[in-house]
């Protein structure tokens, strides 16, 4: 039995093509996935991401707890509403999950964790809070009473469309810089996203989600499925948990060194293993020069040894196939490498792991 988000019937009413996404019955597209992709780059689209799990962390020891729990440093969170992208590591220094932490007050933080990892993440967090004997209460907000829906509205016109539907939110959110959140009545509105475009992620009481979805649609916001979400995040060079990194991969080998804060004596789970192992691989982009489509798990042959594609697809913005790949140290941006596609060695160019953001190709 697949799990359903609160917007399931809304997707079906819009003739979405539904797929089993890690045990969730989710829309992959509503028509053309490529048109949905372009809608977000050029105008505005919305995604149901209510399968992701908000977690409230409340109590006197929040900061201590989070500073030990994740590899990024919550000491960077000084302004109320500020968000931080972080990896939660195991003792081997590999990634249990990647998450966003919103700082609301010194005794209240909100975290958003991935759908497929939610149960193990929560168990891990609860175990660590108990082990460290800290005053924190950890409450998931996805299922059961007081649950929240999440709608991501993304694209250059996303803010204006949200204000059209939620005029009361304009004053509190129009000054929001990227990666902040504001609470307006029952709405939690964050300038975060997974597309490389401006926009908001709106958390709201689950019972209001369908009405909000339909109002946004009436305002001209295109419903977009997980298919477009994947090509948008791939173009933006954003990692996908389970593909680009998992419990066997160090954040240093997944392009996430920028989220690992090592410049203080702060200790965190996985730090000693991570620093002992150091960086073993590079996380870079590929653009296919021959015809075809790059996909996850394809082998990459370089002058410095073999690597592997972790995510690949066709880029609607570049009109070429692109990928994120884990490659040997020594490979340089600009190098030409070969990718094994069905037994043929096709040529690809190594790039920085970002292809398009803010409506434009950056390669």
């Amino acid at each position, binding site marked *: 039995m697949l799990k359903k988000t609160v917007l399931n019937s809304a997707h079906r009413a819009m003739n979405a093509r539904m797929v089993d996404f890690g045990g969730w019955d989710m829309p992959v597209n509503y028509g053309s996935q490529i048109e949905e992709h372009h809608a977000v780059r050029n105008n505005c689209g919305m995604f149901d991401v209510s399968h992701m799990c908000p977690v409230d962390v409340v109590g006197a020891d929040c900061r201590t707890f989070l500073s030990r729990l994740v590899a990024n440093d919550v000491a960077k969170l000084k302004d109320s509403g500020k968000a931080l992208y972080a990896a939660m590591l195991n003792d081997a220094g590999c990634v249990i999950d990647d998450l966003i932490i919103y700082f609301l007050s010194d005794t209240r933080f909100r975290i958003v964790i991935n759908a497929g990892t939610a149960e193990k993440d929560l168990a891990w967090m609860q175990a660590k809070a108990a082990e460290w004997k800290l005053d924190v209460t950890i409450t998931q907000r996805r299922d059961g009473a007081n649950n929240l829906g999440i709608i991501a509205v993304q694209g250059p016109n996303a803010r204006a469309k949200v204000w059209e539907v939620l005029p009361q939110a304009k004053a509190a959110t129009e000054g929001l810089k990227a990666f902040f959140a504001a609470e307006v009545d029952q709405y939690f509105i964050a300038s975060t996203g997974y597309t490389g475009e401006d926009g908001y992620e709106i958390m709201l009481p689950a019972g209001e989600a369908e009405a909000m979805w339909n109002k946004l649609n009436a305002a001209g916001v295109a419903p977009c499925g997980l298919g477009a979400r994947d090509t948008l995040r791939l173009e933006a060079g954003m990692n996908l948990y389970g593909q680009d990194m998992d419990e066997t991969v160090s954040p240093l080998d997944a392009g996430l060194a920028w989220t690992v804060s090592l410049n203080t004596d702060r200790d965190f789970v996985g730090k000693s293993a991570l620093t002992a192992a150091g960086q073993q691989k590079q996380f870079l982009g590929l653009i296919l020069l021959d015809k*075809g*489509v790059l996909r996850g798990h394809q082998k990459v042959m370089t002058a410095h040894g073999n690597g592997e594609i972790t995510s690949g697809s066709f880029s609607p913005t570049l009109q070429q*196939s692109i990928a994120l790949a884990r490659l040997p140290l020594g490979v340089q941006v600009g190098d030409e490498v070969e990718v094994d596609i069905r037994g043929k060695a096709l040529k690809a160019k190594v790039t920085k792991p970002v292809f398009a953001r803010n409506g434009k190709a950056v390669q």
Partner: protein
Amino acid sequence: MSNVLANLKYAASHEWMLLNADGSVTVGITDHAQEALGDLVFVELPEVGTHYDAEKEIAVVESVKAAADVYAPIAGTVTEVNQAAADAPESVNQDAYSAWLFKMTPDNVADLNKMLDAAAYQAVADAA
């Protein structure tokens, strides 16, 4: 709902076949297949002159989402490929029954009689 044409034969692996007057068979993927795959971005066609056994991988269609093999529905030799479909993969999404992929001369034209008719294929598509 996807479209199934009455004048064609079908394989359960979602290829359609049209028997031409000259005895050759035109092959493409069904409307149901293109709809399930979503926006196509790459088509790899077989080489003219190559012989394929029935149910052998003969071509590849890739959408943004996934790669899918196309199988030779019956044994035969490829006589012609539709380069226009490879140059514009979206044409298969727009009309899967116009944007054919290849033509083949069957080893035994009677093999076509073993393929699904429109009603039988519709049942396969509905169950998928």
